């Protein structure tokens, strides 16, 4: 059975290689259209087979799931001796991995199909789709890994794909900057993550996840290790204080935002904590820190989402906020609730992004102040997005209602010292989530159309301006199908967890969410042309700027490092190399001095000899 997991990982990898190298062969005689069609096949087909394999693995888990741990599929290809703790190249598919594997492959498949239409006019579609395939492969490696180092390999390759895809439209310097920022911020967290892996691996004497979980490690070591792991989790899952890269990452194409920056990669941090959950449970202080991070992050991000004008940035901040919900569930001691919310969030957030992509494709702008009244012109998207927003706000019967209820119930029953703070923040966040969902929904689909000023159209330079000239573009069929398909799980997936339904906390959170939405609705009703975000009053600008954290980092980290770098170059030239050049000059100078004595004047030589004799004689007399 492990062959299926191997196949699921390798096929997208091969697809990526084929797409990168094979789409344009032979170079001179392949027209762009052929290359694109070929690349589309290389992209869609492997991930479709991977999805079948992942579903098969998960189905097998579900059928044989009652036999306890025996149902885990595992296999080791080789042991690599390092001279210390060996690395075992192996995979292991348990219940959790099988479930997340399905999420990854299904969303990836939807995004690949959607991209065929979305990137229709993009000359670099082959590399774009190949990087998505590479990403899918790397993410599956993370999910199925049986060894921490193998997991880390996939973890970093995901980061690279994220970098390459955010910077897909590299002509624009802003996209390039966003890509670099995303890579560097996550890399900073990953250093901690790697050190955490070292700590666990050395204490357990093995990097295999099973051995690590089974090992008897002292609590202090566990706390250190999990705290270090948390740095990587915060970076990848965009949690405070390493979350600032995610909103900027929206510079990438919208399907990428759906796949990498909403449904899968950013959820990898949550997945890893859940995968190593016994280790984290044994280190309560780490879970408390995670709880505080989650509480601050969920509320701050939700407030930021409320003030954004860019539709994708609203969704980005809501992703940070929802990931913090999952982290909160983990901190509260319920990995089930966290994973439940992860899966439903994956479905409804991917749906929201794909719908946003349709809207942006149609309008030619990201800004909600250029949208409005799209309900009639985009009916399918309207209904799909309504489902998505309902799920995001946690309204029944959408999937998010059940999973958010599970999270809130978990927090309510937690015994963590941060429980009260966490619970309070979670409830307020539910209200704010209702508010920003309602705001985005109303401003996009209701009211009257607000025209796009000509200068703002085509802000990514990939051919939307032509649409403006030709009138409204038709939305391609390949973009609508994935939307419709994803709407089904976004609506119904919640019923999978209906057994653990907690009616009391559900009632509270629905009331609070409706309260938030109601306030926005009444404001909007008062004057539909104006932005309901004005209710934030003087806090609107700080919220919109995400509490100036970017500015702070720029002042405290980026600029000092660059100043230091310039200082090093100066030092290197003047001091380090200066000493070298100086010693060279000194040697030349010294030889010049010596040369003075060798001037060929016999009188001088004789005088020297006599002076020497005299000195020696005086010395002998004095010392004797």
């Amino acid at each position: 059975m492990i062959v299926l997991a191997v196949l699921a990982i390798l096929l997208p990898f091969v697809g990526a290689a084929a797409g990168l190298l094979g789409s344009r062969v032979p170079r001179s005689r392949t027209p762009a259209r052929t290359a694109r069609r070929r690349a589309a096949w290389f992209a869609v087909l492997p991930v479709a087979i991977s999805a079948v394999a992942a579903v098969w693995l998960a189905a097998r888990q579900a059928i044989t799931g009652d036999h306890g741990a025996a149902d885990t599929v595992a296999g080791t290809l080789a042991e690599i001796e390092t001279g210390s703790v060996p690395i075992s190249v192996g995979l292991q598919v348990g219940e959790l991995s099988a479930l997340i594997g399905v999420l990854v492959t299904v969303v990836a498949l939807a995004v690949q199909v959607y991209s065929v239409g979305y990137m229709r006019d993009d000359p670099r579609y082959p590399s774009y789709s190949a990087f998505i395939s590479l990403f899918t492969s790397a993410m599956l490696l993370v999910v199925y890994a049986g060894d921490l180092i193998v997991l880390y390999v996939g973890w970093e390759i995901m980061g690279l794909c994220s970098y390459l895809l955010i910077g897909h439209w590299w002509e624009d310097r802003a996209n390039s900057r966003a890509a670099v920022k995303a890579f560097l911020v996550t890399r900073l967290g990953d250093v901690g993550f790697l050190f955490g892996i070292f700590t666990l691996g050395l204490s357990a004497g093995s990097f295999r996840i099973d051995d690590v979980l089974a090992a008897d490690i002292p609590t202090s070591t566990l706390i250190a290790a999990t705290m270090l792991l948390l740095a990587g989790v915060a970076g990848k899952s965009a949690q405070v204080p390493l979350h600032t890269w995610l909103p900027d990452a929206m510079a990438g194409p919208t399907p990428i935002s759906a796949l990498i920056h909403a449904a899968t990669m950013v959820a990898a941090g949550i997945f890893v904590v859940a995968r190593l959950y016994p280790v984290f449970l044994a280190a309560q202080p780490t879970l408390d820190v995670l709880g505080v991070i989650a509480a601050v992050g969920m509320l701050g991000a939700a407030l930021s989402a409320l003030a954004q004008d860019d539709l994708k940035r609203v969704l980005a901040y809501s992703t940070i906020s929802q990931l913090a919900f999952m982290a909160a569930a983990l901190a509260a001691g319920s990995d089930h609730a966290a994973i439940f919310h992860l899966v439903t969030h994956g479905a409804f957030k991917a749906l929201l992004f794909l719908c946003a992509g349709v809207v942006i494709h149609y309008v030619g702008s990201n800004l909600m102040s250029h949208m409005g009244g799209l309900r009639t012109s985009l009916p399918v998207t309207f209904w799909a997005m309504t489902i998505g927003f309902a799920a995001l706000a946690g309204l029944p019967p959408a999937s998010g209602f059940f999973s958010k209820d599970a999270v809130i119930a978990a927090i309510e029953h937690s015994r963590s010292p941060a429980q009260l703070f966490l619970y309070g923040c979670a409830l307020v966040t539910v209200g704010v989530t209702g508010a920003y969902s309602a705001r985005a929904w109303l401003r996009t689909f209701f009211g009257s159309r607000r025209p796009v000023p000509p200068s703002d159209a085509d802000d990514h330079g990939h051919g939307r301006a032509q649409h403006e000239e030709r009138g409204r573009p038709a939305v391609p069929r390949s973009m609508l199908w994935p939307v419709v398909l994803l709407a089904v799980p976004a609506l119904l997936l919640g019923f999978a967890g209906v057994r653990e339904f907690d009616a009391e906390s559900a009632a509270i959170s629905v009331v609070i969410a409706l309260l938030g939405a109601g306030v926005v609705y009444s404001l909007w009703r008062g004057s539909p042309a104006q932005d309901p975000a004005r209710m934030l009053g003087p806090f609107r600008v700080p919220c919109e700027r995400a509490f100036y954290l970017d500015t702070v980092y720029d002042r405290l980290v980026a600029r000092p490092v660059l100043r230091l770098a310039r200082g090093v170059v100066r030092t290197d030239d003047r001091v380090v190399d200066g000493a070298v050049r100086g010693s060279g000059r000194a040697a030349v100078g010294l030889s010049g001095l010596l040369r003075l004595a060798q001037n060929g004047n016999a009188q001088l030589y004789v005088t020297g000899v006599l002076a020497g004799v005299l000195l020696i004689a005086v010395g002998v007399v004095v010392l004797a």
Partner: protein
Amino acid sequence: MSWIPIAMLAVPLLGAAVLLLPRFAGRVPRGYGLAVSGVTLALAVAMAAVFDYGDTARMQFQTDVPWIPGLDLRFHLGVDGISLPLVVLTALLTFLCFVHLAGRPQSRPRALAFTLLVLETGMIGTFLALDLLLFFVFFEVVLVPMYFVIAVWGGPERRAAAVKFILYTLLGSAVLLLGLLVVWSQAGTLDMVALARGNGIARSTQILAFLAIGAGLAVKAPMWPLHTWLPDAHTEAPTVGSVLLAGVLLKMGTYGFARIAIPILPEGAATVAPWLGAFAVIGIIYGSLACLAQRDLKRMIAYSSVGHMGFVLLGFATLTPVGVNAALFGNVAHGLITGLLFFVAGAVKDRYGTADMARLGGGMLGRLPYIGSLLTFACVASLGLPGLAGFWGEMLALFGAFRPAAELSRPLFLTFMVIGGIGTVLTAAYFLLMLSRVTHGRPARDRGPAVDVTAYELAAWMPLVLLTLLFGLWPKALLAITTPAVQAILPGVGS
């Protein structure tokens, strides 16, 4: 007595000697250098194929004949798991340099082919030698041809750079020679294999000898603060010079640590290791910061070598099998990746006429998509992305520092590890900023069309790309060769 090592030295040397014949004056056959270095590469591959991988700790293909009997000097050659990868790497890089030259002929082709073949003899000899003085002789033989490569075929400031290169490294060699002589006088033999088995040199003498030998090797590696010859030499050297300088010459310094300094002087190593580690991590941070503010592409890659060699030296400083493994892995990976980087940077310089980043402008991915992509690949490999060769050396070096040898201070090395970790972030920062500056953005409008990658260039680069991928995806290919050999040179150190 084995003929392969001797043939590997004889083929390039005879090849160079034949070029001196008067009939080659002015018109050297086009594929001559390619053929000679190709035969050498074939010999290296044959050696790797026949090599007994079941016992990589043993010296294989040994040749041991008296050389200068009066001084008890012996012509002793051989390979084990430590030197084999470097020998093959050297033969490969030299061959690829000739492939590159076939596509882009330089002035005075006969002299250049002669110089490079002599250089190859010296480089391969350094990695094969098992006698201390023989090692030293080959070590020195390398300097002279490299001086001429820089001084004759280099950029506008080539004279000064070449003089600085040769004086600085000769000074280092003098100190190295003193150290080797101390070992000889105390142990009474020059045979590396015998010396590594145990030599009874007193601890204080070991420290002295380690300091001298280490300083000599550190100039070559180069270790901070003895690195300032490197940026000038790299910036001025022609592409083939830069590739061999970064790909092979720097490795001779670090190879010396694995072959001579650590196995022969274990107590000296244990005493000096904390200092070595400290200089190594300073080099990592210092090199990365210097890269961050560089304006010249080739100079930036040169400083990046200071940072990468810092990881290699940190691996040695831990005195653990995993650390030394990391250093040897890092050596090979750096040779492949930085070789590729210099090839690509040279191609960029050929097309734009400058390597100054401000004057390169941006938009290379738009103007030269293949070269831009390969530059991106090489940079991503160099910043240590898992799945590519650069990662394993850095990761294992940090892991070695996480638990250094028992006689070293663990808190100190944990500090080194954290500093090294910050260094990896800075490394990513300067490479990505450079890529952002050079490959992204819109190309300047006034530039005409340029020729993207040529067939010769692809032929010279692809082996490096493929090996970077191979060792990145399957590190066992290299670790399986080095691990037993490393465990043999670090007796008494458990895993």
